[in-house]
């Protein structure tokens, strides 16, 4: 109970800081003029919610992939979905360099092509599937490298900035991301007992009544779709999906009825804080948020890991 209270307090504090901080500090409870109101509610607030939803989706996908593949090192991009999405985004940029939304559309199409490849291997056991995913990821990196080599110079900055995570101009409406966050969390909670049983290994889960084949397919589709949405909204933001589920297991135990909601909130918090830092540290210029997720998250995670051991 104490931990949930701490997470709730952290949520309120982070949302407050996320709203207030920026090139200019704005207190949401004491707005001085219409400009501040516009900056706060029309620029920072939607971006903060986007960061929260994307972070939560990535953390949920990470938790699912870790169980699905029976490997705590798994993360949302492990099966190559991020690589295919990036390749799609860069292809879009090559075809229609002037379009504002073409990278998101390309990423979405690319992510689903990646998912279709992954689903083709869904019948394999966890280890082989992981191996297939690593090989697919290598394939998509090669395709991406080829596309980047062919991309005209003026498109390179936009491509790299997107690939390192960019929340500044998400083409997916905030409402869609928040609804997806809620649906993903509910789906996760519905599957939570089956996920817990899967922690015992596929044989034990099956012997305890889980239809493992069906569960794996559903989980793979769900985790991939969530990853595709997050990548489309904000590019590839590493680290959140790998570390937040671990962090939440350290704090809330291994059972998914606690790990999933805690990850959905914790992932959101990390990305809100990272994005707040990304747009403040070097203001008015912005740093890629993916760099900040690692800079904030790594010390916190290592500290908890050392304290625990």
């Amino acid at each position, binding site marked *: 109970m104490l931990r949930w209270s701490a997470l709730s307090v952290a949520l309120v504090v982070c949302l407050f800081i996320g709203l207030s901080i920026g090139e200019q500090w704005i207190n949401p409870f004491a707005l001085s003029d219409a400009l501040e109101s516009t900056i706060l509610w029309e620029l920072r607030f939607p971006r903060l919610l986007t960061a929260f939803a994307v972070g939560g989706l990535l953390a949920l996908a990470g938790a699912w992939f*870790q*169980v699905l593949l*029976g*490997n*705590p090192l798994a993360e949302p991009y492990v099966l190559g979905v991020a690589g295919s999405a990036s390749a799609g985004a860069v292809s879009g940029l090559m075809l229609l360099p002037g379009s504002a939304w073409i990278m998101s559309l390309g990423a979405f199409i690319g992510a689903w092509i990646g998912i279709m490849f992954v689903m083709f291997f869904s019948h394999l056991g966890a280890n082989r599937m992981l191996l297939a995913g690593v090989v697919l990821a290598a394939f998509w990196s090669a395709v991406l490298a080829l596309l980047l080599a062919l991309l005209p110079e003026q498109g390179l900055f936009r491509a790299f900035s997107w690939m390192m995570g960019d929340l500044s101009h998400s083409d997916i409406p905030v409402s869609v991301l928040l609804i997806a966050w809620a649906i993903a969390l509910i789906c996760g909670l519905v599957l939570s007992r089956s996920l*817990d*049983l899967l*922690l*015992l*290994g596929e*044989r*034990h889960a*099956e*012997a*305890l*009544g*889980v*239809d493992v084949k069906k569960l794996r397919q559903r989980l793979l589709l769900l985790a991939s779709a969530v990853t595709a949405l997050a990548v489309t909204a904000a590019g590839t933001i590493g680290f959140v999906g790998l570390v937040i589920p671990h962090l939440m*297991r*350290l704090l809330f*135990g*291994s*059972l998914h009825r606690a790990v999933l909601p805690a990850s959905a909130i914790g992932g959101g918090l990390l990305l809100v804080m990272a994005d707040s830092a990304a747009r403040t540290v070097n203001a008015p210029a912005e740093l890629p948020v993916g760099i900040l997720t690692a800079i904030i998250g790594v010390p916190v995670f290592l500290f908890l890991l050392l304290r625990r051991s």
Partner: protein
Amino acid sequence: MKELLTLSNLAVERAGRTLLSELSCSFRAGEVVVILGPNGAGKSSLLLALAGLIPSSGEINLQGRALNHYSRHELSMQIAWQGELPPTEFGLTVNQRLNLAVAEESEAIEEVAQTMDIQALLQRPLGELSSGERQRTELAALMLRDAPIWLLDEPTAHLDLKHQIQCVQMMKTQCESGRAIITVLHDIQQAMAVADHLILVDGKGGAEYGEAEQLFAGQRLTQLFDAPVIHQGALLVPDYGKRI
């Protein structure tokens, strides 16, 4: 005694190799059947086939209905399987592991934890336990299951002498309470202590089912393992020879 599980011409193949063919027998409530055979002969695979966890040919009938007509959930109500130790990467505690064996929070957890001497370990992660402690946790999880059929794959593996004896006694008690227990064992003494019937698996596709007393009496085990097994009074023991 009521027949719970019936096999007709059961055949099990793994990786293109026939491990068992044409095994026909019945398992009854209140009876222990021990599966014996050399390494790699297909003992564990037979258990997995009986649990419906790997494909097999022939017929397996569970309480009058073909095994493959049961859903996974229905099967889990009828059959409890104990096999390899679960992975420890995700930090499950002993208490959480035991809770996963039952559908709802159960007071019986304390009781079985006491029986298996793991009450002091309940809050510890599985990864911090020795193999013997993890095996005792698995046996405690098994005891929480209501299933009338238990399939046990080397339940005494990793256990010290005290807990091996306790495990054998537990099998006897559970059998007396009406369960059918089918178990793989490597220790002949333990097999002699619990078995009503034996299934001898030779690893070349052959499997023989029979009364334990009869099969223990002759030279059948010496042939099966291609190793000296000698009779010492009522006991059958491996002949390790003497130190030179």
